[in-house]
């Protein structure tokens, strides 16, 4: 087929493009993922029984802020990684802020605590399950978002996959915070972060397979 013939076919298919904005598409995917993840959490883990009292504690909001900041920065990174020619810009720097912040508090906590309490500050009671549960809750976010990303012609597949995983983990951490009883900054900085980084790593590995077009 001559290229001129192909061009004629393509031009015949050229309707005005209805632009559903790429960011809008991602937000819709994030919302659906959020609903599904919340339902999953309520059914399998249950919201913490003392959630109302917990809202009086600063660290409850600290956990939410940690997760929400990471979620917002990661979602913007997903957007930029999904569109041909966009650069990540300052997003990687923004992503570093919440971990740095939580560990600034964490180091102070550990330093000011009696030596025999340090281990429990770090391990809490649920360290063994926390990363796995966050990863589990990230699955609805990941499935919804990867679909949206695939419709965008991403040209950097590992970055897009990793960003999607990072966003999914961070959003899942926000959902998980509604169930989780742990309040210590060293715990959050370690086990929540691990739960967030795990889906990112999976996204990095699976990116090419899932997103190739």
């Amino acid at each position, binding site marked *: *087929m*001559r290229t001129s013939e192909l061009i004629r*076919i393509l031009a015949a298919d050229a309707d005005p493009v209805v632009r559903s904005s790429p960011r809008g598409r991602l937000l819709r995917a994030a919302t659906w993922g959020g609903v599904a993840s919340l339902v999953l959490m309520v059914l399998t883990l249950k919201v913490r029984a003392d959630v109302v009292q917990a809202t009086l504690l600063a660290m409850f909001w600290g956990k939410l802020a940690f997760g929400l900041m990471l979620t917002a920065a990661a979602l913007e990174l997903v957007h930029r990684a999904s569109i041909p020619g966009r650069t990540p810009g300052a997003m990687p720097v923004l992503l570093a802020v919440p971990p740095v912040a939580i560990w600034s508090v964490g180091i102070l906590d550990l330093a000011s605590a009696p030596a025999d309490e340090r281990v429990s500050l770090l391990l809490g009671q649920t360290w063994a399950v926390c990363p796995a549960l966050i990863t589990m809750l990230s699955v609805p976010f990941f499935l919804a978002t990867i679909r949206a990303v695939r419709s965008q012609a991403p*040209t950097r597949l590992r970055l897009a996959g990793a960003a999607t995983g990072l966003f999914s983990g961070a959003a899942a951490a926000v959902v998980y915070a509604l169930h989780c009883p742990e309040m210590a900054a060293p715990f959050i900085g370690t086990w929540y972060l691990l739960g967030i980084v795990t889906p990112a790593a999976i996204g990095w590995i699976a990116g090419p397979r899932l997103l190739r077009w």
Partner: protein
Amino acid sequence: MTTGHESTSKDVVTDVQVRLGQLLSRGLAGDADAYQDFLWRLAGYLRGYMRRRIWDHPDDVEDLVQETLLAVHLQRHTYDPERPFGPWMHAIARYKMVDAWRSRETRAYEVDMPEDGEDLFATPDAEDSLARRDLMKLLARLPEGQRLPIQYTRLGGMTVAEAARVTGMSEAAVKVAVHRGLKALCTLARKVRYANL
């Protein structure tokens, strides 16, 4: 301050990018003539760019040009008219080139491409060539509902309205069928490229 020659060629490249971006923007808004003009000019630049780089399999150049045009067409909704056209186009062209190389035996081939893609818009090659792999043959493998609308709009250049009359489908259904058929063609072309090695 740059030397006369340097600034001239850089300006030309920028002008080309701006021009193509404007044509595509108008095409996205529904201007079919602008869109056709865009595709035609882009084909020339892609051909020149790829001919300069695919020196071990020159027969494959036109195939890749066509595949890239198809990809640009299917993903045109991701172009934001507010942003520069060059980086968007170069990312897609580069992606397709790397994908093409990956499908060859030389899997570990390191693609040597300048990151800024300035030379994508340097010298066009406007020769309208025949592709080695015939997309029309691939077309035959599509289901009739997708194949016919494409063939009708191609054969004798039927308009969508005419093709709708002949197939008995609504105009909207013809457009959807053409779009789906093109997507299927894109996937098929990749599969064939990987199978052929």
